[in-house]
């Protein structure tokens, strides 16, 4: 009998790396669900490519978490052998794809943050985090450009595409605040100068989002009440379903290789 979930010793640095890795893995998995279903072949490839970039970022971050934890876990253990309450991703990343507009807006809100954040993290004194940031920021710049162009096209498009984009903004908005949260564990790393406080990127994110939404003729919601909980393992019902699909094979056949 195998245990369902590994026990991770979450030192601040391990927790930090797992949070970013989980964001990338869960969002990347969501994008992979579009494979074969996107509205056009080019978009099928774009979403799969972006998902692949995120999967790669997740792998680097999991490997780093494994190295820092030094408990013999591998990237696969983190991905496949933790249950939903052990996942540390943003709620935004796990929300279902919905229609194409919701997927694009979710990507845009995330990429607009990740692009700024990883670019700044290239200056981290931690060489591994700086290297992961250097790779991620270039990839994320492409993701941001892709999603921002679609936000404009959908918002400033037909009556229906505008309505769907506006619905997506309204649905996703309460999940955007969590990106800027940092708890005590993370603030210790910020104080030590190893990582950057996500809160420091709120104004720049706000500007990118305001500019693109304005160009898309979409209204930017007022700040309002924000959902949170993903960073400490309190997730929506959706994550469990995603993990059930993603983890089924390695859990049914532990140690399987091909």
């Amino acid at each position, binding site marked *: 009998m195998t245990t369902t979930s590994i026990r991770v010793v979450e030192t601040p640095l391990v927790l930090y790396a797992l949070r970013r890795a989980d964001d990338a893995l869960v969002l990347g998995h969501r994008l992979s669900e579009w494979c074969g279903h996107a509205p056009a072949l*080019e978009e099928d*490839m*774009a979403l*799969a*490519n*972006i998902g*692949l*970039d*995120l*999967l*790669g*970022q997740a*792998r*680097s971050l999991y490997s780093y978490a494994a190295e820092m934890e030094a408990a013999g876990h591998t990237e696969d253990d983190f991905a496949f052998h933790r249950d939903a309450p052990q996942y540390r991703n943003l709620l935004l990343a796990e929300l279902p794809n919905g229609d194409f507009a919701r997927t694009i807006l979710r990507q845009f809100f995330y990429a607009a943050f990740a692009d700024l954040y990883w670019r700044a993290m290239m200056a981290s004194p931690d*060489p*591994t985090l*700086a*290297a*992961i940031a*250097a*790779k*991620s920021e*270039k*990839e994320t*710049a*492409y993701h*941001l*450009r*892709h999603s*921002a162009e679609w936000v404009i096209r959908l918002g400033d498009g037909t009556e229906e595409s505008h309505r769907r984009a506006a619905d997506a903004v309204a649905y996703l908005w309460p999940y955007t605040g969590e990106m800027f949260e940092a708890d005590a564990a993370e603030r210790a790393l910020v104080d030590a100068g190893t990582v950057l406080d996500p809160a420091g990127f709120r104004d720049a994110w706000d500007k990118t989002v305001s500019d693109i939404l304005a160009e898309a003729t979409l209204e930017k919601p007022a700040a309002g009440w924000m959902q949170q909980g993903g960073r400490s393992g309190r997730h929506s019902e959706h994550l469990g379903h995603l993990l059930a699909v993603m983890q089924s094979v390695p859990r049914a056949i532990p140690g399987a290789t091909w």
Partner: protein
Amino acid sequence: MTQLDNGLGDEVLRRKAIEAASTVVDPEIPVLTIADLGVLRDVTVQGGHVRVDITPTYSGCPAMNMIAVEIDLALSRAGIEDKEVRTVLAPAWTTDWMTEEGRRKLREYGVAPPQPGTGRRALFGQDVVACPQCGSTQTHQLAEFGSTSCKALWRCESCREPFDYFKCH
């Protein structure tokens, strides 16, 4: 054996290992060797143990596993058994590391090479990409994300041919 002999043996072994590893090609673009791409970062030998360092082009590049296996096989074929292939992240790979020779081979293969020394581009700016078939710069992008993570799909207005563009990173 004296210390000096060991050192000399290592240097010979190192040259042999570099030669073997340099022949490995990118499975997605088989005209480019990993040396052309700048993916082969370092080969070191210590006490007869060979270590080859490679660096990923893109975070999720599925070719990296294949390349590591190919290097391992190439070293075996060269008679080197005490070996490891290691993936290093720092410093992060950039298309600026692609050699001139690599860019020429890419162009001949029909893929427009990445522009050198561009660094990070303006986010909403657009590149001028010359058609690898006819050299025309009357080209435009059809899709930002192409057949692999490293390519975008473009088309030439002059010769009307579509072509892959190796994206700047």
